[in-house]
């Protein structure tokens, strides 16, 4: 790791101010991606600004129509939140599948979304559920937030403060883990909104990050059942291809994981 300066602000405003003063500052949430990248000397922020201890950024609020997860809430707290498990079990399940237990104790939803790793789990839920990303400046719709690999709509210095999920009628998440890293080789989140709309998002598969899967959405809108996908074919073009998953394999996984997510959703 290169030299850096550590800061621990106690409020979002203080964090933003520190960011402005740093030459090449970075926010540090759970650090489960940033610290490894810094260790590998692939990132060299002049300053790291720790958001994890800012009280206003931690917590889960479960309401009747929405679930709000504040940005610095660790995955474990999401996965183990009893009210959330009841209101939006698919999201709690997704959180329980991220990384490993130690990673879930530190990693946060805000950090995951701001990083937008193409194989991260959370972006699929955010996109499929049509969540809203709240920042210190504004609200961003999920459809406008993800801008390709490791790219988001966030401006320099902008901090995610919370993510608001509408509670769906049905939702499910199925992940096929990368055998080595345990990131999503492909993960699919399916959601049926209370108004009957169907949104499906796949992570780990596309060369341009998390994506909606229109063919599956259409099929499920017509018939919400795993069997509805029998004749759906996902094209391999535009999908990632590597040692552990060729593009045609990932295309297959999108369909198979979608079927299993629908089964899980009930």
């Amino acid at each position, binding site marked *: 790791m290169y030299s850096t300066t550590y800061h621990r602000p106690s409020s979002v405003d203080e964090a933003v101010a520190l960011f402005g003063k740093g030459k090449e500052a970075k926010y540090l949430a759970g650090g489960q991606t940033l610290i490894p990248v810094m*260790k590998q000397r692939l990132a060299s922020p002049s300053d790291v600004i720790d958001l994890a201890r800012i009280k206003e950024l931690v917590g889960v609020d479960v309401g009747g129509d929405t679930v709000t997860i504040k940005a610095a809430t660790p995955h474990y707290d999401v996965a183990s939140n009893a009210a959330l498990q009841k209101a939006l079990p698919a999201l709690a399940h997704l959180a329980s599948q991220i990384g490993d237990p130690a*990673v879930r104790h530190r990693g946060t939803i805000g950090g995951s979304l701001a990083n937008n790793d193409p194989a991260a789990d959370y972006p699929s839920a955010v996109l499929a559920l049509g969540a809203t990303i709240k920042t210190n400046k504004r609200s961003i719709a999920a459809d406008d937030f993800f801008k390709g690999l490791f790219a988001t709509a966030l401006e320099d210095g902008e901090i995610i403060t919370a993510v608001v999920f509408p509670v769906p009628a049905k939702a499910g998440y199925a992940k096929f883990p990368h055998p080595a890293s345990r990131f999503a080789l492909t993960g699919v989140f399916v959601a049926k909104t209370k108004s009957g709309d169907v949104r499906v998002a796949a992570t780990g598969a596309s060369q341009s990050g998390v994506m909606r899967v229109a063919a599956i959405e259409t099929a499920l809108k017509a018939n919400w059942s795993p069997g509805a996908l029998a004749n759906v074919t996902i094209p391999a073009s535009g999908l990632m291809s590597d040692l552990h998953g060729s593009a045609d394999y990932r295309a297959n996984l999108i369909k198979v994981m979608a079927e299993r997510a629908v089964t899980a959703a009930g």
Partner: protein
Amino acid sequence: MSTVKLTVNGRAVSADVEDRTLLVHLLRDHLNLTGTHVGCDTSQCGACTVHVDGRAVKSCTMLAAQAAGSSVTTIEGIAKGDELHPMQAAFRDNHGLQCGFCTPGMIMSAIDIVHRYGGKLDEATVRHELEGNICRCTGYHNIVKAVLDAASRMKVAQAAE
């Protein structure tokens, strides 16, 4: 350089370290607590697992400064004097270790698993929960046995308290 103050194994400690110092290096190099190991550089192997404020974390994936003000427990801090922690005893009794290098992290993760699940542990759950800890010697067979054994010992110990 910053002065990092925290509690380690129940003792208040303070160390002057570069801000880029990882928690694991604070423990190993500055506090001479060399039971916590470094087995990889990608946060995968779990040999460095310690408890921070009661939760298992990878001390190689956390700056020492992030732990300032926290309470850290390492493998050196779980026995009560000569009395082994039930998880330590279970690892020994079930031959849950060979070369011993992954063992401290494995034990710290395993204690955390039992804390989270209480007595509701089965083999499949233990195997899944151990996914952040890599062992090259044991094939995990006896580690899984040890964790299940310790879970019942810890339940008995808890009931007795």
